[in-house]
């Protein structure tokens, strides 16, 4: 299973998904309102865990769910909320992500007649500018996805100073590591490497330059969720995320059929 620890000496105690959910929850700490877009079961679970850990201080809205959001103004409401500063954190991804934090959800090759066409930009060209803590999430960390320069900028990582831009990239979390984004330097900095992976592996699989603080041996391992967190993720969080993502809750978090 790709989601388990590769080191045969260690009994796989948790899945990659659970490690990511735990780390995402930490990244969201202190947010008043976290919104989660479509097709995002791991970010959604991370947000629900963060809400639990906040002791009820955090609001979470999961789009595409009936029970995990209470919007009443149709599709436009999340965008209006974002522009007013009522959303503190959101998740975006990209078919390509580059070292300046630019994301591409449109396709590969020269636009418009691209050789590979993806879905499109969705709300990225707006939310990336307006939501203060945008966490980039991509489970494929390769030179194909982490590129020197994106083929199409759905949304830029940074803007010139006079552009209204309270928002932008905060972190980039992948299947092998976590980067923090440095807005002043307009670059990513390696923050931690997931257990079983190395800084060299990150370098080999990343098409862009990034900062590594001082001695690369000092890069910490991404913390593993402890037993109580794992129990939470597999229990309460799995039950809640099963509303929009029943398959994910059952297959990845081990939620049993009628446990809700």
């Amino acid at each position, binding site marked *: 299973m790709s989601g388990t620890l590769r080191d045969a000496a260690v009994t796989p105690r948790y899945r990659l998904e659970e490690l990511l959910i735990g780390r995402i929850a930490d990244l969201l700490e202190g947010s008043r309102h976290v919104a989660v877009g479509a097709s995002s079961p791991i970010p959604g679970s991370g947000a629900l865990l963060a809400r639990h850990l906040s002791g009820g201080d955090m609001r979470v809205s999961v789009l595409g769910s009936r029970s995990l959001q209470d*919007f009443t103004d149709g599709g*436009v409401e999340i965008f209006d909320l974002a*522009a007013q500063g009522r959303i503190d954190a959101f998740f975006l991804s990209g078919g390509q992500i580059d070292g300046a934090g630019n994301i591409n959800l449109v396709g590969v090759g020269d636009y418009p007649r691209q050789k590979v066409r993806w*879905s499109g930009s*969705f709300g990225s060209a*707006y939310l990336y500018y307006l939501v203060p803590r945008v966490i980039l999430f991509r489970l494929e960390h390769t030179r194909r996805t982490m590129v020197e320069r994106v083929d199409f900028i*759905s949304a830029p990582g940074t803007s010139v100073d006079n552009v209204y831009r309270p928002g932008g990239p905060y972190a980039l979390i992948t299947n092998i590591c976590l980067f923090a984004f440095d807005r002043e330097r307009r670059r990513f900095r390696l923050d931690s490497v997931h257990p079983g992976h190395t800084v060299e592996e990150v370098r080999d699989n990343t098409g862009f330059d990034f900062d590594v603080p001082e001695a690369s041996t000092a890069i910490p391992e991404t913390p593993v969720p402890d037993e109580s967190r794992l129990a939470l993720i597999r229990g309460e969080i799995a039950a809640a995320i099963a509303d929009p993502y029943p398959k994910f809750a059952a297959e990845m978090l081990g939620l049993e059929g009628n446990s809700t």
Partner: protein
Amino acid sequence: MPVQVITDIEALAARVPDGARIALVKSASGPPMALVRALIRRGARGLHLVCVPTGGLAVDLLIGAGCVDALETSAVTLDEFGQAPAFGRAVRAGSLRLLDATCPAVYAGLQAGEKGLPFMPLRGLVGSDLARHRTDWKLIDNPFGEDDPIVCLPAIVPDLALIHVRRTDRQGNLYVGDAREMMLMAHAARETLATAESIFDGSLVDDAALRPGVIPGIYVSAVAEARDGARPLGLPGAYDTDDEHLAQYADMARDEAGFAEYLDRFVFDRKAAAE
């Protein structure tokens, strides 16, 4: 003009002229799939689709069937069933005029349309390749601020909003509940053609609890009953998406021959069965 209640969905599809600019809602809100299939059967051509704010099966079918010239959208996707195959082929062939957008830009354009305004400003967008390619979007300096560049989007006024609802009455009042993007589409479009799961003999605006979720008939020119009219997509509050069918479509539509077979089996064959 009073609302026409049409019994035959093919006759409703005949009211959509070639070349029309048409608004269709995202898959999750339940677009009028039965009407879309009727449009394909009638051989509609040259349509300009406005996806509110994204497209899915409805849009992929129309593109693959050769009905679409221009596509204004934030995304086209089959969601968990992957990329939209006919859309991808059309992009590679260069056969579509693409107007890539972002979700709130579609809503903002329609909001300008519903207010009868020429444009709407919107945050974000500055410096993106979307804005670079959308030469119909204009960057201005905020007239109320100082050194504050902001993008203005032209009003989107579709010729027709095509929508499917759970209920209509004979005055063309359409119950959409909290799917307010459908209300926005109807407000912005010159005309709305609707299909409904059922036709109610009373008035939907008489019920105070329903009334806030009703598009009044003033926007609507014709309605037709179409039970299961959003299937195989889901209709919130009525039925869920048929995942098996979507998986089958994603599989069949991977190449043109499979797509043609899908049309034969699930679009054209229905007419034969109805005749």
